[in-house]
């Protein structure tokens, strides 16, 4: 097998376009996260990969094999559902051994393999329990073990952490990633939580309105967003609307030095991450007066909310990073390094330079 390939996949429900012309390559042995807001089509895409929905157009290839018309029960991609979808009438071990039992594997062999998988997910002592007697985290592990029992070529997870509390979610993200790396199985995870995607994924696919907005490594997506949606959805960013001019961008009465790749006079959106803006005395371009309107101490980071000539802005300092200690009402100066500015075409009317 050499990965999973999606060629021009689209899906419509009546007149609604849920997924539009998606072309993706899921590299073998890698974990890819489909990330986007609710209703962006990521779950529909995952269901098409699983064979639970038929694409309206396009093709799915597993290696050289076209699996577009292959029904779900013949694809046998292991899938973990959002609500885990465990069978309440079966014990934990029977749940894990389900795929083996229905495929004709002998009872003792199925039980033995189920025990090995329960051991893998650290639930070896829970085999005889009913599903109702498990906690959320334990249920998730059973769902993972059950999906892995058939040794699938592709492992799919639909928002697997959404039913867990915040602390357990963090733990399970790491555990799942370690397990996936250990097994080396091609994995696709659907999530709307960018932190979850950044923790687990080798590659992130950012989706919006049924389209793929950007594909890349977590670092790429965060530091080099290709459009305003990605910059906004992944992490936090300050946005300003302006127009390109010689040597930079004009935002209201302020000129910002930048290197926008647009012809002069193009309407653009400028973004800067809160941790890239500076409240320091270093000399540099794009320095402007600011007034502190709010201070928020989140433990690992401290946020300064500022009022500037560009509009409201948030600047973030990590613990121990230094910087000034300011209080509400203080007057200061904020610096926006040109290399930290991301300039995107205005979604309404952009004229890209040739």
């Amino acid at each position, binding site marked *: 097998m050499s990965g999973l390939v999606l060629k021009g996949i689209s899906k419509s429900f009546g007149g609604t376009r849920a997924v539009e012309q998606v072309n993706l390559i899921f590299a073998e042995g890698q974990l890819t996260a489909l990330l986007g807001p609710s209703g962006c089509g990521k779950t529909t895409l995952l269901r098409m990969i*699983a*064979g*639970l929905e038929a694409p309206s157009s396009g093709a799915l290839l597993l290696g050289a094999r076209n699996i577009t018309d292959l*029904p*779900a*029960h*013949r*694809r*046998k*991609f*292991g*899938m973990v*559902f*959002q*609500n885990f*979808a*465990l*069978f*309440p*009438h079966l014990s934990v071990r029977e749940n894990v051994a*389900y*795929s083996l039992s*229905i*495929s004709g594997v002998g009872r003792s062999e199925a039980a033995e393999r189920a025990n090995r998988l329960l051991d893998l997910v650290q639930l070896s002592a829970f085999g005889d329990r009913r599903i109702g007697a498990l906690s959320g985290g334990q249920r998730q592990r059973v769902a993972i073990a*059950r*999906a892995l*029992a*058939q040794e699938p070529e592709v492992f*799919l997870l639909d928002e697997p952490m959404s039913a867990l509390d915040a602390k357990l979610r963090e733990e399970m993200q790491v555990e799942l990633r370690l397990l996936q790396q250990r097994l080396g199985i091609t994995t696709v995870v659907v999530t709307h939580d960018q932190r979850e995607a950044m923790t687990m994924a080798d590659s992130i696919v950012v989706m919006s309105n049924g389209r793929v907005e950007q594909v890349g490594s977590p670092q790429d997506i965060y530091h080099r967003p290709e459009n305003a949606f990605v910059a906004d959805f992944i992490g936090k960013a300050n946005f300003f609307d302006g127009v390109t001019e010689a040597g930079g961008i004009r935002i209201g009465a302020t000129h910002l030095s930048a290197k926008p790749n647009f012809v002069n006079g193009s309407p653009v959106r400028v973004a800067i991450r809160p941790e890239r803006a500076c409240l320091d005395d270093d000399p540099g371009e794009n320095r402007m007066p600011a007034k502190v309107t709010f201070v928020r101490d989140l433990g690992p980071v401290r946020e300064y909310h500022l009022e500037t000539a560009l509009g409201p802005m948030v600047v973030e300092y990590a613990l121990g990073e230094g910087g000034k200690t300011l209080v509400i009402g203080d007057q200061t100066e904020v610096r926006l390094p040109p290399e930290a500015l991301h300039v995107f075409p205005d979604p309404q009317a952009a004229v890209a330079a040739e």
Partner: protein
Amino acid sequence: MTAVERIAADTADRPARERLTPRRILPWLLSAVIGVLCVVPFLLVIAISFGRKIEGAAWVWDFTLENYERFFVGALWPDEVTFLYLQQLGFSFWYAVVASLLAVMTALPFTLLLTGLSRRAQAAWLAFILSSLSLSEVFIVMGWDILLSNNSGLPALFKSTGLTQWLKDVGWFQTLRDWGLASPRNVKFKTSQFATILTMSYLVWPYAVILLFPALSRLDRSQSEAARTMGAGGWTVARTVILPAIRLPLFGSTLLLFVFLLGTYVAVTVFAAPAQHTTAVAIYTNIRGANLNAPFGATQAVILLISAGVCLGLGHRLNRWAEAR
């Protein structure tokens, strides 16, 4: 008067005032009326079942077990033992069991499909099914009577379209004759157990859909999808996921329809041969029909009631046993 004295005085006369409020009296009154309406007829039937029939006349109050004796071993006991009335009870059970199973088995896939439709389509179907419940048993049986009658119904259609001849040519006609569904000349559905069970099943089919619909609506579809991603085909999903998940409502619906069908009267009188009539028909014959033997009719009614109760009890125990497993 101090506050403490005022509270004490209020508390002292409250019970007297509460006894007099209509809100307190009304539930008791309603319970009493419903109790009388439900319990008195039952008690009367039980009391009459111990009464004595006067040959050539009516019956008198008494306390004799003759009627019960007659039901189990026949009127000629001890000289001769006959099981005519037990046989009728057996037919009651047979028809009710098969018809309720048939109704539930056919309603299940329909209801499952129904739950997959849009809300609007579901509402339209449910309204249609509910409206069919307004049809009386007599009306439904009349419709089926025409449909299955030898001269104007399906047998006539079979003959005119050449289907009867085709059945004869392929050799299946003899099989239908063996099953009592054909005369030497044509197929024949009246009288037959087939027509009786089919009509009884049709009578309760809307109830089966309505009883199963809530449970199937609540069914977690992701469980079926999970099974499919693990290699389960349609039948395997139904057998290993859907049926276990709805085992209790399925069993409960079948039991309820079975008890309901034990009392079917019109369908049996129209479609079943006299030798295969049920206890319900015999009860009517004894109480209002030719026999005018109310005590024996009441005895049969009590035994039918007890049988239904035993079935419900056994069903409950079976359920608990299955749950425990």
